[in-house]
């Protein structure tokens, strides 16, 4: 029937935003102070689930991200546990509010951003945030997280509610591949080796973790054993694990759905420069804007696909010991 409600795009049960939205509803009883802030985009961020399950704790701010972000500071100040939700690109509208009214005040407030990077797909370049990790990472005391799959997103949702201090967490728009089983655990600040190998380490976050695993499988066919690290916490970065990987594998690839400047790649480069400098290749969007298209297609065209990661791994390996 033509008059039926339309199908929501890209929010199958396996998108990170859906996993986040459902997890939030499930956790609401356990966290009675939890309130969810929306800027007229609940259907997009996954928190329509929470609106339905806990309407009295769902706070509507309209299309006004600055006010929403700063108001979260006030809600936290009176003892509530606010979770600010919008698209990643619109979080960039409220960077200064997150800085002053959340981070500077050390508020227990969480920012959860859906629609990061090229994963946004057909909405196109204007909507594909490639800068958010860099911008939020630079705010003193702000923790930055980008989980890899729906299971991890659900775990991370609980972890940030239990966490003390402001957090910026990315989810994702498009159906995501599963990386982890039901036995997965998550801890803020800890990277995890998801695949062993000693020739090179691929450090990835978000949608790039699944692609990194795929790249490692391809490399394995050529006898190259790539280690894959899921670096779900970008700040504070797991410097100990990075140092170990650099020592053990001698070359690093970073992979993220973000500009290659200032994001996960930057965090890894900074960390290793302090502990164990080694060749790094960066997989990410190369300082250009995105475009409309399907996420997988865009990933390939902009050099974020598993093939690009595998090529970067070969380059990194080739540079070992060449200094």
């Amino acid at each position, binding site marked *: 029937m033509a008059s039926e409600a339309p199908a929501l795009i890209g929010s199958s049960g396996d998108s990170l935003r859906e996993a986040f939205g459902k997890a939030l509803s499930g956790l609401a009883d356990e966290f009675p102070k939890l309130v969810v802030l929306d800027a007229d985009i609940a259907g997009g961020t996954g928190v329509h689930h929470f609106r339905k399950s806990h309407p009295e704790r769902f706070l509507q701010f309209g299309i006004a991200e600055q006010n929403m972000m700063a108001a979260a500071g006030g809600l936290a100040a009176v003892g509530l546990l606010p979770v600010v939700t919008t698209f990643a690109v619109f979080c960039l509208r409220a960077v200064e509010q997150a800085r002053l009214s959340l981070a500077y005040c050390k508020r227990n407030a969480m920012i959860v951003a859906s629609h990061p990077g090229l994963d946004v797909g*057909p*909405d196109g370049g204007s909507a594909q945030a490639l800068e958010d990790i860099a911008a939020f990472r630079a705010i003193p005391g702000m923790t930055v997280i980008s989980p890899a799959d729906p299971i991890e997103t659900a775990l991370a949702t609980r972890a940030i509610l239990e966490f003390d201090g402001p957090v910026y967490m990315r989810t994702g728009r498009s159906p995501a591949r599963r990386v982890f089983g039901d036995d997965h655990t998550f801890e803020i600040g800890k990277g995890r080796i998801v695949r062993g190998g000693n020739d090179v380490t691929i450090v990835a976050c978000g949608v790039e973790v699944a692609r990194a695993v795929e790249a490692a499988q391809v490399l394995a066919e050529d006898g190259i054993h790539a280690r894959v690290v899921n670096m779900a916490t970008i700040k504070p970065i797991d410097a100990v694990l990075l140092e170990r990987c650099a020592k053990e594998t001698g070359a690093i690839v970073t992979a993220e759905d973000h500009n290659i400047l200032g994001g996960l790649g930057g965090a890894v480069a900074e960390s290793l420069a302090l502990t164990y400098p080694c060749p790094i290749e960066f997989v990410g969007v190369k300082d250009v804007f995105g475009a409309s298209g399907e996420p997988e297609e865009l990933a390939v065209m902009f050099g974020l696909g598993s093939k690009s990661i595998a090529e970067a791994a070969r380059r990194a390996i080739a540079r070992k010991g060449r200094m």
Partner: protein
Amino acid sequence: MAFAPKAVITSRREAAPPPARDLEQEIALAARFVRQHVIASIYHAGSGHPGGSLSCADILATLFGAELNTWPGSPHDPMRDRFVLSKGHAAPALYAVGAHHGYCDKLASLKLRKFGSPFQGHPHIGDLPWVETSTGSLGQGFSVALGMAMGLKLQNSSARVYALLGDGELQEGEVWEGAMCAAHHKLDNFCAIIDYNKLQSDARNDEIMRLEPLAAKWRAFDWAVAEIDGHDVSALLKTFRRAGATHDRPSVIIAHTVKGKGVPYMENMPAWHGSVKLTREQADDALTALGATHKEIREYLDGV
């Protein structure tokens, strides 16, 4: 309606003859084309915002059909009027009206939101030079248009600037910064049109964030305010002419519209705001309601 009295007649529009009946008919036909094209392109894209594209079809058809001094062949003419689609998610309607008037190809512009196509989900000047500025983040297009109006005035140009905003978009503080600024600088070459369809992403404005009394807000920000039926082409034409003659103040046209206008099953339904997927049957029904023939429907849906 509260436009300032026409103390001084400066607009070149003053000299133009009153709009002819057949102009109105032409515009109505163009609006029909826009609506059909919107449905077809969103159908092919598999995503896109139909509701807010349909509500502004008559406004766009009027602007491009009669009001804007722009020429498809010379998108860089410094004398041209500027139009900014501040509610950038209505891109399909902009592409459609552009296609109708020869700014872009009709068939090509059905290839919406696809990789490699210049017809992105939101209008991008980098892909289409006749798009005056890239939009998609609500509130910004309005400020950019304001900057254009200010810059044109500084350079003594008689070109005018038009910005089309959504009602939900008015919740962005940036719009009120711009409203205050445009009035302060007396940008009477600047005209904002509000596509007042009473709905935004998730629900009615009233539920999400009340906008009323809306005309009072704009008056308190010192704009000349007109309130009209945004589907009434004749009213649109007259109101644009008045706005063009307003002195010392920017003009806002609060155009009351119906979200999803022309497609009965979409009208006034928030669910059809969002980025939605149209089934073949839905697209067929919509095009039928919009007066397309069987042959046209086949061309729209299969000919691409």
